[in-house]
């Protein structure tokens, strides 16, 4: 079974992000980077599936050089092959999906895994757009997966409820938190990763159908009243809910 996984490298979720002086870019160089948390679930599920059905897992990442670290880690965890679509441009989800689609179709995988969203731009549609471009069946926000020879059964988390659906191959699956517990790379994995194929393709002339006007910080909420005595606080809170919020 051939499986592709699309991953990205994002700033650690505890990072403070600063806007550059031109208000059009972010200063992201000094930050610590991690594999996008949702992509770790995607990768783990791909590896688990490979272990049952045999085959290979190809990890693909589009973006700047820092994405190489994510791909190397994925190889160390157990992916068989990595493809880095190297570009310095940032793009919108449509053009990112097109780039990934062009690469994925050359491998003809029966399953393609994505994280359901990235922790940085959180467009949360790249996997879905890619599914349509590939003309694969889409299962988004999957929190439980059962794969058999000819059918996929998935539990999908939808706004506040879940559905269990089944579909056929080939399919794109976007991973929700809780799908599995991602493993860590072993020392042996890190050593063997160096011998695995790592392909770099330089992408030029990328398109972007969004135009940024500016970046800004959300208005800082200023601190309101804080009560230190709990009885006084409870009464104060009730009158706050009654008079200001007007929900009681």
């Amino acid at each position: 079974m051939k499986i592709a996984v699309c991953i990205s490298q994002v700033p650690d979720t505890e990072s403070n992000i600063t806007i550059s002086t031109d208000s059009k870019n972010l200063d992201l160089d000094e930050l610590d980077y991690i594999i996008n948390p949702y992509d770790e679930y995607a990768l783990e599920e791909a590896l688990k599936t490979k272990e049952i059905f045999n085959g290979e897992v190809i990890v693909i990442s589009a973006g700047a050089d820092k994405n190489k670290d994510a791909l190397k880690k994925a190889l160390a965890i157990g992916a068989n092959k990595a493809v880095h679509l190297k570009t310095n441009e940032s793009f919108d989800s449509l053009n990112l999906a097109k780039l990934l689609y062009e690469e994925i179709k050359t491998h003809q995988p029966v399953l393609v895994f994505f994280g359901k969203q990235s922790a940085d731009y959180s467009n949360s549609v790249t996997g879905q757009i890619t599914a349509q471009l590939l003309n694969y069946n889409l299962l988004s926000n999957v929190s439980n997966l059962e794969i058999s020879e000819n059918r996929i059964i998935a539990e999908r988390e939808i706004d506040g409820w879940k559905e269990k659906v089944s579909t056929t191959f080939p399919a794109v699956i976007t991973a929700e938190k809780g799908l599995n517990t991602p493993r860590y790379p072993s020392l042996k994995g890190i050593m063997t990763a160096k011998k695995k194929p790592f392909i770099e393709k330089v992408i030029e002339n990328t398109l972007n159908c969004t135009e940024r006007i500016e970046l800004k910080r959300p208005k800082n909420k200023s601190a309101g009243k804080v009560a230190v005595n709990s009885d006084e606080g409870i009464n104060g809170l009730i009158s706050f809910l009654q008079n200001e919020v007007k929900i009681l």
Partner: protein
Amino acid sequence: MNNNFIVFLEQTDGKITKSSYEVLGAALDLSYKLNCSVEAIVIGKNFVFDESLRLKNLLKITHCKTSNKYLAPSEYANIISGHYSDLVNKDIFFANSSLGKDIAASLAARLDTGIITDCIELSIEEDSIIAVRPIFSGKILDKLKLKGESRIFNLRANNFSPPNKFGDKTEIIIKIIDSFISDFQLLEIIKASGKVDISEAEIIVSGGRGLKDTSNFSLIEELSKILNGAVGASRAVVDAGWRPHYEQIGQTGKTVSPNVYIAVGISGAIQHLAGMNSSKYIVAINKDADAPIFKIADYGIVGDALEILPKLIAELKSLKLKGI
């Protein structure tokens, strides 16, 4: 610009969802400024039309009546692209729900159209629609526009006002969609019983490690029930297995903007604040007076959650009894 707007109205049991109704409100607001017209599409077996859908500038609502019990997102997208022969020069609006994003993405691929999800603000500058969306879970706001002939926008719940200009020209059209063979089969719907959907909720009562034990979340549940709200949770308690992931608020959970967010025993890590700092009112209850959550709270109580919650619940209950 002479664009027409299309709004996809999501429904459950035939009733338009609150977030889709807000999407309709936002699209109509833009249409008054750009002097263009709006039409809406509803897909599903049933659709209950009511007078709240007769609106100024809303030309028509097409109900695509399907006999298939379950539709996959791509099948919704098939129906939409099949219904509108020409989607060039259109702006298409969706809710930022799970289904809304899946359908919008499928259409974006088919139409080769740019898409902006999770919009919290829309405005017009020089005849173009400008969107604002939070990135890095709300640490930064990205103001941007879409190039190209058509555009797709997904709008976050609780950020746009429902329609307020009523009219009498809205036409209702029913179109029968022939049943088709699907690659998808619905096996089961697992509903969190009696709970309010957290992304649409007006009130969220959220608990963190300050609750000390998973069993104490019954207090959070009780408070949210009295206030008719939804239950949220911090990453720490979800990772500890106290609460399910779908309740998690923050950068690897849900980003919410309710009317009131009540954070109980949550110190306010940056990734948590990112997921809720766009709430209209924030209330914090925490033992540590220096907790970052107090810096953004409109009302705060310093104290032990386990001591305060039972008293607060009792007070609210007695208020309800008095009928206030």
